[in-house]
């Protein structure tokens, strides 16, 4: 398999599976049948958990929750291509990536439960950075991390996720430029899910996001983000390229945010149901499942087993989340500084009584 990105393929996203699951490109992306089944399993698991989280929020067990239904292929396909030592810098919507990386879901969800900011999991152990809310600010972190890894002679690659809306921020630009000029071992993975809260991507920018790469001196590629095989292949190539020392790649995965921006958002205020229905018809899980079955890599029993496993997993996570108490009050003080000033100690005493 060539590891050159399908650079310059143009506005039409790279695609392997048509929306109905029929192959339109070379479906051999270098994965074994077992690995292919894993892709489906992760996607089913992720969607099931995502829906559970929405329910948990409705029941008051989570604070605002940002769902990712519709983006399973983009997240799972890309995350599955990562090596053990590669490091992910996520936004707030990459729960599926976290799962694939092995981040404990209950720990991850403490962020949304309002029991800890950022990284209740260990970001260095999981190689999955803290959840990041300020738009695009994780991208310079990724650039710095990639530089640090290279200085250590590691061939690990740094993967940064971000949304279409994030590309309008200065931090996106500064990080992309650093990645280019320092030829960093880094993949910039944009999930263009059509919307940034209420702003459609057509009003976010007049350009095409993948084309930005050229201006920074590295390749960009647009893939069908609902085609898990295409996403996987594009990511694998970009990772290889970076590992080889040839620098960054910008991947724009065209996908869709089926749900609202978050559980606090009412998407009917700004978009048509018809658009959502069209997106549902292009469901990434159905597409891949249909191909997987047709290609004989899985059977109905496997699909059923995935779903049962997902149900069990969701229940387990639910139980874990509900059992998570508020953190000890003193943590508000104890983690601020490695070496806390005496005045903070006095405030601590004042607060804890």
């Amino acid at each position, binding site marked *: 398999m060539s590891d050159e990105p399908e650079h310059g393929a143009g506005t039409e996203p790279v695609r392997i599976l048509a929306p109905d699951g029929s192959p339109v490109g070379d479906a051999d992306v270098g994965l074994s049948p077992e690995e292919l089944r894993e892709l489906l399993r992760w996607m089913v698991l992720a969607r099931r958990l995502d829906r559970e989280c929405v329910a948990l929020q409705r029941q008051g067990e989570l*604070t*605002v929750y940002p769902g990712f239904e519709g983006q399973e292929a983009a997240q799972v396909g890309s995350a599955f291509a990562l090596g053990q030592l590669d490091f992910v810098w996520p936004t*707030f919507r990459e729960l599926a990536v976290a799962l694939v990386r092995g981040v404990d879901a209950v720990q991850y969800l403490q*962020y949304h*439960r*309002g*029991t*800890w*900011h*950022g990284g209740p999991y260990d970001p260095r152990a999981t190689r999955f950075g803290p959840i990041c*809310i*300020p*738009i*695009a600010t994780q991208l310079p972190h990724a650039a710095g991390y990639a530089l640090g890894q290279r200085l250590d002679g590691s061939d690990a690659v740094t993967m940064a996720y971000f949304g279409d*809306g*994030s590309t*309008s*921020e*200065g*931090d996106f630009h500064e990080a992309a430029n650093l990645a280019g000029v320092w030829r960093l071992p880094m993949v910039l993975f944009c999930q263009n899910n059509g919307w*940034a*809260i*209420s*702003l459609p991507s057509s*009003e*976010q*920018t007049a350009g095409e996001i993948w084309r930005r790469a050229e201006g920074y001196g590295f390749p960009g590629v647009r893939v069908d983000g609902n085609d898990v095989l295409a996403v996987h292949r594009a990511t694998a190539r970009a990772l290889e390229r970076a590992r080889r020392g040839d620098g960054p790649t910008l991947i724009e995965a065209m996908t869709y945010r089926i749900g609202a921006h978050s559980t*606090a*958002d009412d998407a009917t*205020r*700004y978009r048509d149901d018809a658009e959502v229905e069209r997106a549902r018809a292009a469901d990434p899980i159905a597409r891949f499942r249909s191909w997987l079955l047709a290609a004989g890599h899985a059977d109905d029993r496997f699909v059923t087993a995935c779903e049962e496993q997902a149900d069990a997993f969701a229940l387990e996570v639910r139980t874990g989340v509900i059992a998570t108490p*508020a*953190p000890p*009050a003193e*943590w*508000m*003080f104890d983690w*601020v500084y490695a070496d806390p000033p005496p*005045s*903070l100690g006095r*405030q*601590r005493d004042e*607060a804890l009584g």
Partner: protein
Amino acid sequence: MTEWTMSGALNRALYDALAEDPRVLVFGEDVGRSGGVFRVTDGLQAEYGEARVFDTPISEAGIAGAAVGLCFAGWRPVVEMQFDAFSYPAMEQVVDHVAKMRMRVRGRVDMSITLRIPAFGGIKGKEHHGESPETYYAHTAGLKVVAPSSALDAYRLLRQAIADPDPVIVLEPKARYWSKESGELASDGPGIGNARVLRDGENVTLMAWGAMVARVLDSAAILADEAISARVVDLRSLSPLDDAVLERCARETGRVVVVHEAPRSVGLGAEVAARIMELAFDHLQAPVARVTGWDTPYPPASLEQLYLPSVERICDAARKVVAY
């Protein structure tokens, strides 16, 4: 008499300002089609069109900078930063240009920019959604900073901010967006630069702004039961501060507690305390007490009530100051 939520009153202020002055523009992230994450801009685009009320890309520096350029073209931009912490990417534009431009061009161009920022904590928000940025702005010469505590005053302050030829940062206490107040909306009354005495009292003055005003009022009620007569001042104008009210209350009650959500160190409470010392040293019976957020990042939702000044902490401070 109509009952107004603060969100509704702010919405109405924008509506009226757009109607009165054709040079007023309203823009920011998600303010148009969706009407803003707190609905403060609801319906404005439908009424005034996409030319005057519009959504922007996610570019806070770009938005603040564009507002500066619009002033040069004679417009009055009313800009929303979606949440407190999301005003930080615009800090360079605000400090270097919004605040300084009028001086640089010797008054030839008014920086008639209103920067609306849903601010402060208390809504179990995600991180970066509960910050109290008033120190950053109130320390920056060239800006004015206000923070309303009630629906009617929110209307008044926002109208005044928009009418002001100088740049005004409006910190809207998001925890109070759904609080209600009855009365007629009016833009006259106490202006930017004026504090308001909300409750009279003789033994101690409690000073606050934004969402903390409600807590301070609750505290005064409790203290009254203990025969401590607490005066309550809503500072509302954080820059400029109302020196006359600071001085008068400090002199008359001799004891002051200042309350805010921001971390204590170099919080605005320090300025209030320092000024009171300068203005009324000989009348002070006790050191000005500060009841504030801690010198820590704003904590996760499950700890926020331990971070925010509580009625208990406010009452305790008042008792100590009175007993000093």
